[in-house]
């Protein structure tokens, strides 16, 4: 295990949650065979069941008073892990030991019923969290006040906005008198004012020495609160580490997946048309050093490198390559072409340079079309096979930056 913290020896009593070699498999039947008739008519026929391994050999320890994060991309097993910790799922293999009382909720507002009023829902949700009616009575005013919903308590929940529902749910949830809290993506909703309130509450809970397990996509939140983080990918435990290291791992994950997505998309996903006699194989952006990159800072030279194949066009046929650089809203930014360069079909590689470009912050896509010299026939046109981003420190808006000068007249 990676979390031996130097000289601080961890004793059993300091551990809030101990996860040892946890595996979780789900059986996904290919053809859902849930009717008795099917079973009776073909009792011997085995349904083809696909085992989905949601968690593979996950082990870690969460110390008491720790703010522990679980991060990973969609489908990485985060929520499954949280549900295993919350004892909603039984692990297929391995064990989870909980030391202390645990708030059993995973999501805010469990048991909320849209047909009941806010008041009634407080009692319902309170019961879910283990409060008796008396206890809810005692904390009722506090809950309503914190949620800032004094005027709405006798309205049905279905008439609440989603933000109001979350506020109400959160106000009840944080009153759970347990040692360990499990929180799944709460801060995604609510306005900034309420989010600040949540932050304050988290800090308070942390100071009270409660153990908090927090699942999030948002690395900024994770970095701000968590003492340690487990990074999951495809059910595997990639690392159990400090948030700063987890951040690096997490962005690597996202990067590599985007890269593979882009590669597959450059093969077949983008829109393409034309006669196909002369085609564009590859479009990449490069720096002035010649290195492939898709990230540029403002004013940095941008090169667009294209390679082509001649499929059935005769030798030395004249052609023109036209490019279109579009912004995030698909608006045309620049549309250069090679009319003045005189290209012919023996050409295989071409670089278009933008020297000291005036492009502002943003993501730009490239489309490439190969025409005959009169622009009447398109040999090949590919729409947005690749894109690049420009970033820099500026307060100016718009797609381009131009030298500007303000003069005070009066």
């Amino acid at each position, binding site marked *: 295990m990676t979390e031996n913290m130097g000289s601080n020896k961890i004793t059993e009593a300091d551990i809030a949650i101990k996860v040892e070699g946890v595996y979780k498999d789900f059986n996904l039947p290919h053809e859902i065979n849930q009717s008795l008739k099917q079973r009776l008519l073909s009792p011997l026929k085995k349904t083809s069941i696909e085992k989905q391994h949601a968690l593979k050999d996950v082990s870690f320890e969460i110390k008491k008073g720790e703010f522990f994060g679980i991060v990973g991309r969609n489908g990485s097993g985060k929520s499954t892990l949280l549900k295993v910790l919350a004892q909603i799922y039984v692990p297929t293999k391995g064990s989870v030991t909980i030391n202390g009382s645990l708030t059993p909720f995973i999501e805010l507002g469990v048991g909320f019923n849209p047909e009941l009023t806010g008041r009634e829902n407080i*009692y319902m949700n309170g019961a879910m969290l283990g409060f008796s009616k008396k206890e809810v009575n005692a904390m009722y005013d506090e809950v309503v006040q914190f949620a800032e919903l004094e005027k709405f308590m006798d309205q049905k929940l279905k008439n609440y906005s989603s933000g109001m529902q979350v506020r109400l749910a959160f106000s009840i949830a944080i009153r759970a008198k347990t040692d360990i809290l499990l929180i799944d993506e709460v801060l995604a909703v609510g306005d900034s004012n309420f989010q600040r309130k949540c932050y304050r509450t988290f800090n308070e809970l942390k100071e009270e020495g409660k153990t908090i397990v927090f699942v999030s996509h948002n690395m900024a939140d994770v970095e701000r609160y968590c003492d340690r983080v487990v990074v999951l990918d495809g059910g595997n435990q990639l690392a159990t580490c400090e948030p700063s290291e987890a951040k690096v791992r997490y962005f690597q994950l996202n990067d590599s997946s985007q890269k593979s997505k882009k590669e597959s998309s450059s093969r077949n996903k983008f829109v393409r048309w034309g006669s196909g006699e002369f085609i564009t194989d590859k479009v990449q952006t490069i720096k002035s050093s010649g290195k492939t990159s898709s990230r540029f800072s403002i004013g940095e030279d941008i090169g667009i490198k294209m390679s082509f194949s001649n499929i059935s066009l005769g030798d030395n046929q004249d052609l023109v390559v036209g490019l279109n650089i579009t912004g995030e809203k698909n608006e045309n930014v620049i549309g250069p072409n090679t009319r003045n360069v005189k290209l012919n079909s023996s050409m295989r590689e071409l670089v278009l340079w933008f020297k000291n470009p005036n492009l502002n912050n943003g993501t730009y896509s490239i489309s490439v079309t190969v025409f005959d010299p009169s622009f009447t026939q398109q040999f090949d046109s590919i729409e947005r096979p690749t894109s690049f981003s420009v970033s820099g420190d500026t307060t100016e808006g718009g797609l381009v930056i131009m030298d500007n000068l303000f003069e005070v007249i009066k």
Partner: protein
Amino acid sequence: MSEFKTLVSNLFSKRNKALLRELVVTDFKLRYQNSALGYAWSLLKPLGMFGVLYVVFTQIFRFGDDIQNFPVYLLLGIVLWTFFIEATGGALQSIVARGDLIRKISFPKYIIVISGTISAFINFLLSLMIVLLFATITGVDFGPQILFMPLLILELYLFSLGVGLMLAALFVNFRDLSHIWEVLMQAAFYAVPIIYPLKLLIDNYSGTLAKIVMLNPISQILQDMRFSMVTDTSLTTFSVVQKPIAYTPYILTFVVLILGGMYFRAKSRYFAEQT
């Protein structure tokens, strides 16, 4: 035995009591929400149903002319059967219907089934009070045997709960069960002496058939209740079947409850993934 103790103490733990209470109260609130007469319906509905049945079975089909207090006798049967249908049918759907809860929070799942049967049970008690009122008005002479009623009500509840637990757990995997159960109950309605007197069976068919019918807990409870509350001339399991075998329905009640509870417990670990 110690497991049984923890089960009982869990059942009455603070959290579970609060949860059970909220589930039952919510169920009641939602059932009568937006209706002008509200809770009054929980009394008006059985009252209306009684009216219809009373007319049909005392004026048109006169099965029970030779039975003392036949209207009350009949109503008691209908009330009991309505409870059994409501409790088991509700329990059957309960786990699947509450899937959203089960997938998000860890709590003893039997609370869901119990809350469903308790809602039906409250309706049953209200209806029973109307039957009692009706009996008083029509001049039924209550004897000391009415003291058996609480025990019989308890037996009825436990049997229904046992069946309900088993159905609820089975339904998670076999969704055909709801339809099968409905048809089965339709048949059972006529297999149990609810709208016809047991004596009809003995007179027109054979004593053996009556004996078989009287061995199931529902028939036994029904006839015992009639004996205890309507007329002591009612035939009971003991008056139809000879001694050791006559205990069968009572034993069956506990066997069903224990088996249902055990099966439910074993299956409940995986409800969160299967509902």
